[in-house]
């Protein structure tokens, strides 16, 4: 049965009438290597194995599209459970599913709705899985809302590439949305620009100056920051703020509203309070549908060679008409993941190690939280374990120029990232 081009016994005549029109014949922009007909159908329906990261707003859409286009062996990873605020767009979930793992509920729904498709869920983290796990897939589609998780996945897939073994190159298709905006891209690890290469394209999160928050609030957001950043620790001491706890949000809201009244600022609401402290990003079904469809379409074209695929970045803005921009994002030679060259950094000879660390956290194309620093010969500052942190702590106050010669290299690592960054330091003064 496995050799049937039309898949398993659950298929019925006419099932693939629509899809087969593009699998039976090439088009003007189809690669000559395309195996029109049974060859490509057998691969798609009986052999291809695809991994979906995330079963949320994009993930639900991705799973449904993949199943309808004929992928039969789909795996999905998600560490979250279903929340009521997911139901306006994550269409595989219902009210009764709130609290259940997304991956499991999504997998069951797809298998029930689309006969003959096997969806294997994993309720957990991508970091739980090893290289062998990722090596079993032909393609990986990411529908994540976390930058950190995407960086991890991207670096893992770049590291997986073994030049001796072409099978080790796993195309990664990445989608992301925010309100009416979104992007879809095709990453061929080590060949095209990678996720890390484009880190500087991310929107910088708005940070309000602490002085404004403490003294001269003008915006409702300033009042909310005052409540969460200054008042919460002052009143509650070490008690951790839980942004999912309605009582905590309620408290912050009341404090922020009183502050706003004092400064005659309008617009502090429950919803805004929650939005600011949880850093909520607006999300709607339609944008997710567009981006997920674009991602799945690329997966389909790559898996079947039925048409040229995206090279390599599609950006969409839907607030004023439908504006999109398709372009080739370029690989960075000094990308810490796929570039191979050290990142040149010119600093003042007065800069301390502590200041350098601050710069690494903030710089748009680096953004490494809690970095540990070392040179080829010595450890400069290590975030962990505690003994080493303590031993290297005195270096924080030292000048970089005391520890690193001009043109010297500093290696930056962080536990959250499966790669290290090399900096070549030069001094401006």
């Amino acid at each position: 049965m496995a050799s049937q081009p039309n898949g398993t016994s659950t298929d019925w005549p006419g099932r693939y009438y629509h899809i087969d029109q593009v699998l039976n014949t090439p088009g003007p922009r189809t690669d000559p290597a395309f195996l029109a007909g049974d060859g490509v159908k057998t691969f798609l329906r009986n052999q291809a194995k695809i991994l979906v990261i995330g079963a949320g707003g994009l993930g639900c859409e991705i799973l449904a599209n993949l199943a309808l286009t004929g992928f039969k062996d789909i795996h999905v990873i998600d560490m979250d459970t279903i929340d009521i605020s997911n139901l306006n767009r994550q269409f595989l979930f219902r009210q009764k599913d709130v609290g259940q793992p997304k991956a499991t509920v999504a997998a069951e729904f797809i298998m029930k709705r689309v006969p003959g498709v096997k969806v294997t869920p994993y309720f957990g983290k991508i970091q739980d899985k090893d290289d062998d796990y990722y090596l079993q897939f032909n393609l990986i589609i990411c529908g994540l809302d976390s930058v950190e998780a995407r960086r991890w996945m991207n670096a893992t897939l770049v590291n997986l590439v073994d030049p001796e073994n072409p099978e080790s190159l796993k195309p990664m298709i990445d989608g992301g949305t925010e309100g009416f905006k979104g992007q879809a891209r095709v990453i061929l690890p080590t060949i095209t620009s990678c996720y890390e290469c484009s880190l500087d394209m991310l929107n910088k999160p708005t940070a309000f100056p602490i002085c404004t928050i403490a003294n001269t609030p003008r915006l409702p957001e300033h009042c909310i920051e005052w409540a969460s950043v200054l008042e919460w620790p002052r009143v509650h001491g070490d008690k951790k703020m839980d942004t999912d706890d309605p009582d905590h949000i309620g408290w912050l809201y009341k404090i922020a509203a009183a502050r706003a009244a004092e400064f005659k600022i309008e617009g502090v609401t429950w919803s805004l309070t929650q939005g600011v402290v949880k850093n909520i990003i607006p999300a709607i079904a339609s944008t997710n549908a567009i981006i997920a469809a674009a991602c799945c379409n690329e997966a389909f074209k790559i898996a079947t060679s039925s048409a040229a695929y995206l090279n390599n970045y599609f950006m969409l803005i839907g607030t004023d008409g439908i504006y999109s921009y398709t372009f080739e994002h370029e690989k960075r030679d000094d990308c810490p993941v796929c570039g191979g060259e050290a990142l040149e950094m010119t600093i003042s000879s007065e800069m301390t190690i502590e200041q350098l660390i601050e710069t690494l956290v903030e710089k748009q194309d680096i953004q490494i939280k809690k970095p540990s620093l070392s040179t080829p010969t010595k450890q400069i500052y290590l975030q962990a374990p505690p003994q080493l942190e303590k031993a290297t702590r005195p270096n924080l106050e030292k000048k970089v120029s005391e520890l690193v010669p001009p043109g010297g290299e500093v290696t930056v690592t962080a536990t959250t990232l499966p790669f290290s960054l090399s900096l070549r330091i030069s001094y401006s003064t």
Partner: protein
Amino acid sequence: MSFTNSIDIEQSTVVIEAAPDNKTRRYDRQLRLWAASGQSALESSRILVISGSATSTSILKNLVLPGIGHFTILDPEKVTPEDAGNNFFLEGPSSIGKSRAEETVRLLVELNDGVEGKAEMRSLEEVLAKDKEWLSDFTIVIAHNLEAVLLDQLASFLWEDTSNPPLVIVRSSGFLAEVYIQYHEHAVIESHPETTQSLQIDKPFPALLEYAMSLDFENMDVTDHGHIPYVIILVRLLEEWKKTHNGSPPTTYAEKQEFKKSVLKMRKKADEENFEEAEAQAYRAWTTTTVPSEIRELFTEPKVLSLTPTSAPFFHLVHALSRFASTGSYIHLQKLYKARAEEEKAIFKSYLQVPVSEDMVDAFVKNSHALKLLKGKKWGALDADPQALANAVETAPKQLATHLALTALSSFATKQQPNAPLTPTMEALTNEALALLPPGTELPEEFEAAVGEVVRAPTADLPNTAALLGGVVAQEVIKMITKQYIPINGSCIIDLIETWTGVL
């Protein structure tokens, strides 16, 4: 000493709202985009979708989830094995042979308890022949891959009367697609622009200027100095600058740099953030506040010039704005100028000739720099205008190529026997397309790639294309219904091979 007090005279009181209810929590992520007003517009809307194709149900999925009020699927057909293979809102083989409208409606309403769905098994022919008025009862009508003659009849009927609903036309074939919205006019107050309104640093109202000039920056204590709002700093510095520069603001690059430096020079301590902010916002000091040209054009709209009591509120509001602007002023709306804004709003309202709700006046005044009035055309206007097509060959060849390929396919199809298999040739479609252009005009170079795809998969409603159209169309429909954000004006062309979209 409090600066905010001096500017905002009005007292505000603390009103604490309760924690959000389940419905608000469900819709939280979208309320952040279109707020309660947009949501209530969605909840009162009634959508008609013609056919229960994969594309149609994908569109409806993205409208049912955010909570439209009602939808009807008009479809007399039974589910075929082909439908069961590509439509997520059918249950595989067990749906085959059942009413396509009933099956898809049943599975779509499951998505949201708050939405009403209805299956209508009449054919569009029958409705157009016997019960046209039924169509007028919807907020918006959506038609996917409708046969060309029928589509023209539908488009003409809806165009005849301006009170009829807009029509969204969706055409797709394999990896290619087109979306068009037929409307006469679409006015948007809340366009959600990326740019903020001018702060009018260049033309401060008298109380603001007087206040800015009255401050004794030098002898102020350090804390107060660090708390002067940046707007006040800029107003003050600009006024001083003008005194020594013949009344002109900084104009050359060098002057602008000098102005910025003088902002920073006023700091008492290196870390005064308000002065840093004033430096960053310094461009506002040499940005002239004028009525944006697009808004000025609205003032001479025929409907504004010939206002009657029954004109839509939008035109009454624009008329009032034009009278307001003619006094040489433009409305201040920033929170910072609250007291002034209230005074001006009262004057603005006195120009209104009909009562308009307070919420609408507020929204209008707040967005008076970003109002939009879109003017649409009847479906088919482009194809009926050979000269416009010839121009598009030059200006938008890629988009036009796909549009012509899809038009050629539908005109080819109307010449066939009904239900005959649709198997067009490159040659036949090329001739159909050429017939639309003025004699001697060549098809765009890109036509061959586009028409080749149409010939390859003439009737393919591919799941990914359907899903993408589902998102695009639903998004435009939401913008039309909520009258927020700006919908497309014309055709949106989609190519899912190179993955681009374009406007024609």
